[in-house]
């Protein structure tokens, strides 16, 4: 057995198939926007997810900085996406859905996809949480986002992209259709659980704004260069091989700041000048994925 689990089989990118993009399109640009609530009392254990408050309690400063994203930054990003014509997929945790309903409603009004993303950033999915609690958190997260979504909620990203051994099965049990936690591919693939199948939607932490701009402290110009380089390479490969997916995570408390938003706008404009790029939500990508087509 090549892999040490049964969720999926090993598959190299060269053998990937099943993604059928619209005529003339080669690269799906999937923009995801995490809407994250970082409680003031977030625990240090079992680990601090990306973006977690890291000063002693009460971390007023960190709390306010993250809150800036949800109260100011997201509205700046909405303008940018309106201007360039992108509908994103928002991974909305229940904490933000309850606290910032206007921002979430603005997304729904624009035809963005709303997907579930846990209860909040201090309710992590990991092996130390009981199966019952994890199932309840998943149900709660889906229920809260479904209440504000015009279409059924079918997708999931765990807080901090952290899972327990049960998470995938519980997501399938809850009726979800895709998960965006795993960063191991550039094309969708099927994940099997005893409760049914899910699709793993490609996501990239390496190319995310938070990883490049916050964790690695690159300039926004260097971030833009890396994204454009990725797009150029994927488009080149897709010209002779199967289509590719370029996943971009655009985070309100990272890219929504005044000093970054202009470069972000110019980057998206440049990406979309390539007519082979197809901006899609995760749900639209899922609809274009037909694993039975070899």
């Amino acid at each position, binding site marked *: 057995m090549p892999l040490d689990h049964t969720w999926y089989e090993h598959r190299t990118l060269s053998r990937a198939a099943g993604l059928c993009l619209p005529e003339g399109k080669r690269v799906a640009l999937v923009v995801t926007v995490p809407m994250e609530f970082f*409680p*003031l*009392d977030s625990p240090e254990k079992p680990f601090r997810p990306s973006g977690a408050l890291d*000063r*002693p*309690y*009460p*971390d*007023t*400063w960190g*709390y*306010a*900085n993250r*809150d*800036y994203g949800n*109260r*100011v930054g997201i*509205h700046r990003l909405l303008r940018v996406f309106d201007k360039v014509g992108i509908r994103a997929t928002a991974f909305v945790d229940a904490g933000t859905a309850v*606290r*910032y*309903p*206007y*921002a979430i409603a603005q997304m729904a009004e624009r035809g963005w996809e709303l997907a579930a993303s846990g209860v909040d950033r201090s309710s992590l999915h990991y092996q130390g949480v009981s199966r019952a609690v994890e199932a309840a958190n998943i149900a709660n997260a889906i229920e809260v986002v479904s209440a504000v979504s015009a279409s059924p909620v079918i997708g999931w990203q765990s807080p901090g992209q952290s899972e327990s051994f049960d998470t995938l099965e519980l997501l399938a049990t809850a009726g979800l259709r895709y998960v965006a936690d795993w960063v191991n591919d550039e094309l969708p693939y099927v994940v099997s659980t005893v409760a049914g199948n899910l699709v793993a939607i490609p996501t990239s932490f390496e190319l995310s704004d938070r990883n490049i701009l916050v964790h690695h*402290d690159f*300039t*926004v*110009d260097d971030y833009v260069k890396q994204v454009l380089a990725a797009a150029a390479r994927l488009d080149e490969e897709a010209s002779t091989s199967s289509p590719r997916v370029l996943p971009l995570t655009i985070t309100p408390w990272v890219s929504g*700041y*005044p*000093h*970054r*938003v*202009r*470069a972000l706008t110019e980057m998206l404009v440049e990406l979309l000048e390539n007519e082979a790029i197809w901006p899609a939500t995760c749900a639209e990508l899922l609809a274009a994925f037909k694993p039975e087509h070899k």
Partner: protein
Amino acid sequence: MKGRLLPLKDLDRYTYVRPDHRSTIRWPGGARVAVWIVPNIEFYELDPGGSGKGWPRPVPDVLNYSLRDYGNRVGVWRMMEVMDAFGVRGSVSLNSAVCDRLPEIVAACVSRGWELMSHGIYNTQLFYGMNEEQVGDLIAESVRTISSASKRPVRGFLAPALSSTETFLDLLPKYGISYTIDLVHDDRPVPITVRDAARLISVPYSSEINDVRVMGVRGYSADDYASMVKAAFDQLYEEGRESGTVLCMPLHPFVIGHPHRIGALIDVLTHITAHEHVWLATGEEIADWYYANAYDVDSKAACH
């Protein structure tokens, strides 16, 4: 901690107001953006003692202590020279111990008409672990020391080294503070909810284009820093057409005051002062304008 039952999940110090329900800000003279510069003039104790903030290396941490001391011996004077050349004033976030120990620096600020805010007593004496009475005493002493040096009331506050307790904001109005810059959640002033219906507002500070964060901690070059600040200015200037915005430039003499970085300050100030419709303000001026023109409307704005 007094009155505390469970750790707070939410800060609960201000309401969320959706963007289209916010009052429109029109700064004096039709300015689109209020720019204010906050030099942090600080004193770090060589040996802070058990309750103080420790140095990364054993006391005496010569390298780290002397870097901060460089700010007071060298950097602050270089920074003042540049700010003088552009005719811009500072709103100093001041550790009050500087008044007693290095009065020459405080006198230089006062003679320039700079505003002095309280940044606690020492940047090595933090709020963490203090009870409310101790926090109150610290605020009171810092305000008393600074106002006797400046002969003016102290209006603004930034907690020492951004430390915090659940209730320190409640204590500020009692000591004459009318604005806090501890919250970095918005690009405009915002009413802050405090005990006994006292009045307090937040004036925007910055975690993002703060020289010590950008160049000291995160390791960006001076050119990168200048690009970030200019980009932030351009965006807030543009958005200020609709409603006035605030750009805060936090500075630390031990960071920006180095000869290899001071050019970035010149670059940024050249850019900003080349624009019309910019209000080069102090924190107190922004706060006073806000109280007089927008506080009442904003403090009544409904949640959501």
